[in-house]
């Protein structure tokens, strides 16, 4: 695809945002390990994708693969050993090819890879690329990138329903003193929620297109994720929420076909 045309695609918006965040967060934390992890994650993701597509004679989506690798490296801690970064990227790409319906992945590859890696490798998610350890004002950069991407993929109803439901539920949790609502509303966890809502929730193949279904999808992800957070705390709640949302989208497509 020609360079000028590429820059107008939704995937280009996400790629540019992810690369920008990788560079900004690395400068902010004065640490280049994150960039190295980014190169490893993207390299392994592309290699696994290439091998799978060559052997199965399938078409490869290089943009999507690069985005998956970048997201993984921005969420895993910069101190994560490179074999674990590579393993997480590999799981994500394998899931993208094996867990499919009508040639589209059922689950968000990066979220599934990160969720599985928590249980296999005991990885700690730092969300450093969402500026979790940088000054609060850097959240503005998340919002700018997030609104641009959300607008481009036409997912505002989904993003708004997700955040509205999440914040209402956290308000109730705070009032009823259930779980740890104050933490979820403050850095680095609010950074994680924003990054997740704008860049992972909006993945077109794994989320619905119509506005009505987008609203249900956003509510469902927030509701299931918040229940997990209220019951168990931890950092898996966003991924598990998205897992439930992806299942809803899959069942919708499946029931429409039947």
């Amino acid at each position, binding site marked *: 695809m020609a360079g000028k045309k590429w820059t107008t695609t939704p995937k280009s918006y996400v790629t540019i945002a992810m690369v920008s965040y990788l560079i900004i967060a690395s400068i902010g934390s004065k640490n280049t390990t994150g960039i190295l992890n980014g190169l490893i994650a993207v390299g392994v993701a592309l290699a696994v994708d290439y091998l799978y597509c060559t052997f199965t004679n399938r078409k490869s989506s290089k943009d999507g693969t690069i985005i998956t690798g970048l997201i993984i490296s921005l969420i895993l801690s910069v101190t*994560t050993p490179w074999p674990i970064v590579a393993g997480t990227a590999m799981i994500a790409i394998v899931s993208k090819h094996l867990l499919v319906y009508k040639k589209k992945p059922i689950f968000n590859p990066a979220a599934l890879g990160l969720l599985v890696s928590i249980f296999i490798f005991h*990885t700690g998610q*730092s969300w450093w690329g969402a500026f979790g350890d940088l000054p609060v004002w850097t959240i503005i950069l998340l919002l700018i990138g997030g609104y641009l991407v959300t607008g481009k993929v036409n997912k505002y109803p989904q993003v708004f329903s997700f955040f509205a439901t999440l914040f209402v539920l956290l308000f109730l949790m705070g009032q009823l003193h259930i779980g740890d609502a104050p933490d979820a509303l403050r850095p680095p966890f609010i950074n994680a929620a924003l990054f997740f809502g704008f860049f992972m929730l909006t993945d077109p193949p794994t989320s619905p297109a119509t*506005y009505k279904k987008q609203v249900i999808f956003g509510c469902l992800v927030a509701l299931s994720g918040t229940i997990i957070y209220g019951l168990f705390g931890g950092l898996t709640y966003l991924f598990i929420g998205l897992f439930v949302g992806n299942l809803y989208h899959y069942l919708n497509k499946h029931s429409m076909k039947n």
Partner: protein
Amino acid sequence: MKKMDKKWVILCSTAIAAIYAADYVSTDTQAAIDQPMQHIANNVQKYHKSNNNKVINRTPKSLYKNGTYIGTGTNRRGSIDVAVTIKNDKVINVEISNFEMHYSESDIVELPNEVVQNQSAKVTNVSGATYSTKAFEDAVQDALYQAKNVAG
């Protein structure tokens, strides 16, 4: 599909920002309670005592006072309390007395033994549990600071 009207985008964004602001303000008191310094102060008052409920002062030359001291390590991802028992200037036992990190406690269960073995708050970084490791180190250091014999 037609894109959402900009007016609606602004309206929805404002409404969500308002809900978030209400959330933030309403949980402010709860968040303030979890502030590290207050946490440490509470622990010092509560636990600054030996096993038989009083600090045993040793000779002025000793580095630490005998007893069990609770230290706290806090960062943006939670907090850890450790109970460090000191006898004759040696750390004889370390226990994780409270774990409120957003990660699994099982990642760092070996660290208390490492402190006793090495006789140091500095432990090997646990892969994938960097924030818990750092909070644990800070907690042990905090306990050792409390135990330090000023006269020594």
